[in-house]
């Protein structure tokens, strides 16, 4: 087994190098601001970084000054430290920091190179780890099948998340593959304190691709009602995602999220985080930071990351500004069979063969 050798190399900041470092920094800044799924700036950053690192390797091979780094310093280390730039990270050993400072005073940049094929010992610093156990299978305790079983399974996850409060390695909830009606209604039941005396629990959300959302979901956090206490000052009917179900277009005022932004190839948790950030901003704007009462009828689609991200934003807003928001989920129903065409279920909305039924409102 080969080892990873990391070192900082002093690279004289000639015109080309200085411009390259500036380009790397600019690309990094752009990539940091870009959407999670947009890799264009990341690719540019990496391409430029490779050019810089190749120059550093050449300089090192030609005898340029360098300082070896401990593996622990790698995580916080930027690609390059140029003269007059940010201070070296505190995790660097003092001797290395002093050396880097002296290079920078001489007009050199310190460029990190990380070589994975340095001489090493077979399994030298490798930590032995047990294989992960096979996934635990799930079986309905009540022998339910179909949708009821899905609901029972998701509620069991939520219950486990409540039960594991405060424990290390908390139980995450995993909404992947669960119908949006089940996700929405079950989350509402578990966000609602409902008179129980338990403490609020912030449950991690993990998707089936293994990604975990940066934001937890607050459970047992609010006392929910179905409607606002007073008449809303603004009422809107929104589709959760544009383009997904065009039959909704006739009944909504607009779309909450742009499909082109949301439905991109990226880890699921990043979509959840993105929807949460967008929704927080939009809710804050529409309620004028909680000073205006807003009633939203949300015509939903089945993208669970969007549903979870949106209702997390609703919950967080209600925690900060109770009484300023009511969201009524609207669930799509399968089109009626031909013989029943045009007949709506009582209480539902039918528009051009697009029936929806209201779910339980989220208000506090």
């Amino acid at each position, binding site marked *: 087994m080969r080892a990873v050798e990391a070192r900082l190399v002093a690279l004289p900041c000639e015109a080309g190098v200085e411009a390259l470092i500036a380009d790397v920094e600019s690309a990094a800044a752009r990539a940091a601001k870009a959407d999670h799924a947009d890799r264009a700036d990341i690719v540019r950053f990496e391409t430029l970084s490779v050019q810089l690192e190749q120059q550093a390797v050449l300089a090192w*091979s030609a005898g340029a000054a360098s300082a070896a780094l401990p593996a622990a310093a790698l995580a916080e280390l930027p690609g390059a430290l140029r003269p007059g730039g940010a201070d070296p990270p505190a995790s660097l050993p003092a001797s290395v920091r002093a050396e880097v400072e002296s290079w920078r005073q001489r007009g050199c940049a310190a460029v990190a190179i990380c070589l994975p094929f340095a001489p090493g010992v077979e399994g030298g610093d490798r930590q032995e780890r047990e294989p992960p156990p096979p996934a635990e299978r799930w079986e309905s305790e009540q022998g339910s099948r179909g949708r009821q079983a899905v609901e029972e399974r998701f509620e069991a996850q939520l219950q486990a998340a409540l039960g594991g409060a405060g424990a290390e390695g908390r139980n995450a909830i995993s909404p992947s593959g669960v119908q949006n009606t089940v996700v929405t209604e079950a989350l509402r039941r578990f966000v609602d304190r409902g008179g129980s005396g338990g403490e609020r629990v912030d449950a991690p959300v993990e998707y089936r691709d293994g990604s975990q959302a940066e934001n937890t979901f607050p459970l047992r956090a609010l006392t929910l009602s179905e409607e606002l206490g007073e008449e809303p000052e603004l009422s809107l009917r929104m589709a959760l995602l544009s383009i997904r179900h065009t039959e909704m277009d006739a009944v909504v005022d607009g779309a909450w999220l742009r499909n082109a932004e949301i439905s991109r190839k990226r880890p699921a948790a990043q979509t959840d985080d993105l929807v949460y950030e967008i929704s927080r901003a939009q809710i804050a704007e529409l309620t004028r930071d909680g000073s205006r009462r807003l009633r939203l009828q949300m015509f939903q689609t089945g993208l669970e990351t969007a549903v979870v991200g949106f209702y997390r934003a609703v919950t967080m807003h209600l925690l900060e500004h109770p009484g300023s928001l009511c969201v009524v989920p609207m669930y799509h129903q399968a089109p009626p069979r031909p013989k029943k065409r045009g007949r709506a279920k009582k209480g539902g909305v039918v528009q051009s063969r697009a029936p929806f039924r209201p779910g339980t409102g989220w208000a506090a």
Partner: protein
Amino acid sequence: MDAGPVGMDAVYEALGAVYAANWSDEVLDLLCVPGDGKSLRTIEEAFEVVDRDSAYALPPELLPLSFVDDRSLACVVIEEGDHRMRPGSILRWHLDEVAPDTQLRLLDVDPVLYVSSLAQELGAREAGLTRMLDEIGPSYQEAYLRNEKRPRDFVVRPIRIACQNVIVGLAAIAQEASFDGLTVVAWQTCEVPHVATHEANRALAALVLCDAFQNGGTMEIRFDRSARVTAGSASYSYDGHPEAQVPASLRRYGRTVGIELGAEDPAAIFPAEARELFLAVTPMRPGLRARVGDAIENRGMAPERLCFSLLSGVWREIELDWLLGTSDLAASILAGGADWRQRPIRQAEMEVCRTALMAGMLFARLDGRDGASADEGPRMVEDRRVGVDWEIDPEIGAVRFFGREREERLPWLAEVVEDPAEPLIVLPRSIVTAELAATVSRLAEEGPVAVVVPRDVPAPRLGKGLVMRCPDRLSDLDKAVEAKLLTARISRG
């Protein structure tokens, strides 16, 4: 699991039970019994067929038990022979000349289990075929293929495996959220003369397990759950697989690789069984299999991810062998790699991945015998492999290639260099350090050694070693690596 009869008495007892039992007409159509029994075929007839049609004489340890297809027989081992001749085992005898490693492959471990599984399989075959060919297939064509729509994972999706225009496997699967696993409502396989024994079951199992992995569930696979297929005005409901349990042919394959499928629940493959099956159906050379075993047991890697990486083509065999053999970063790479903000770690991971790609490309070049530019008539694209083997050297971070065809000149070299002797030691790198140059000089004393670098990397100064240039530039390699890492990041879900 049942390892089959032990001792010759047990074998004869098992054969007696087979000959005495009442079998369905479908089984009697294949079964070979002594004398004028109830079967349509006798052992004597089977021997006559072998004498008349077989390319080689049937080993004396074998007794014909049934016909597998028109050109092969299932035979019971009735005397101890070489390592394959375990008494009671059912081996397949091909009448035609076949590759030595495909002759005498294990069909089952016990005569009673084999014939019983045939009875179960053939008893449900008609219902299964009708389901696949008349209902699920046409419905899928109507609802998805015709509309160029991609089905969601919970939709019942048909799978068809064919080899040289012969269908050898059919299945229909759907992810089922109620137990967070995969439901299978159809599973039909068959043995045909030109396909290796159990290959249909192995390939179908590989596809189904990859789907289960991608769906992100527990990997439980059930054969008793109801499912509905709708297309236009037609609608079909199924209450699980026609056999209502793990299909007999799949259990038979499981026995041949030492896995008892449906052990805890006859209608389901539990996650632990799915894990064993995944490892069994994933083709790996012995060296890689050992390395994968080490990665699972000592480095905490999930077997499912390793198998999926290979079967889905995210990483090829030699590439995975390289990743696991040379770097402790393999676990992170297989999971999609470090975040781009952690540049130094990402830098190291990218170098490991680039070198894996270059090793894979060189292997494909050395092992390929593509006649695109040859003057030998129509271009053949099938089975043009040379049979090159490799060995990863973790100590120096190198690949040793064996079994190459001597060419007039080595590939990827600017100057004409006659192909040197074996083995060729190759060190793929995009960064050539002084330490590496010293290693190459030392190795060059013992035999041919080459450093492989991307096309646009400045020429390294080496003493005796060769410098081979990969046709791809550094940025091309990085692009390919990023595509692989992205696939790994989003493959489950």
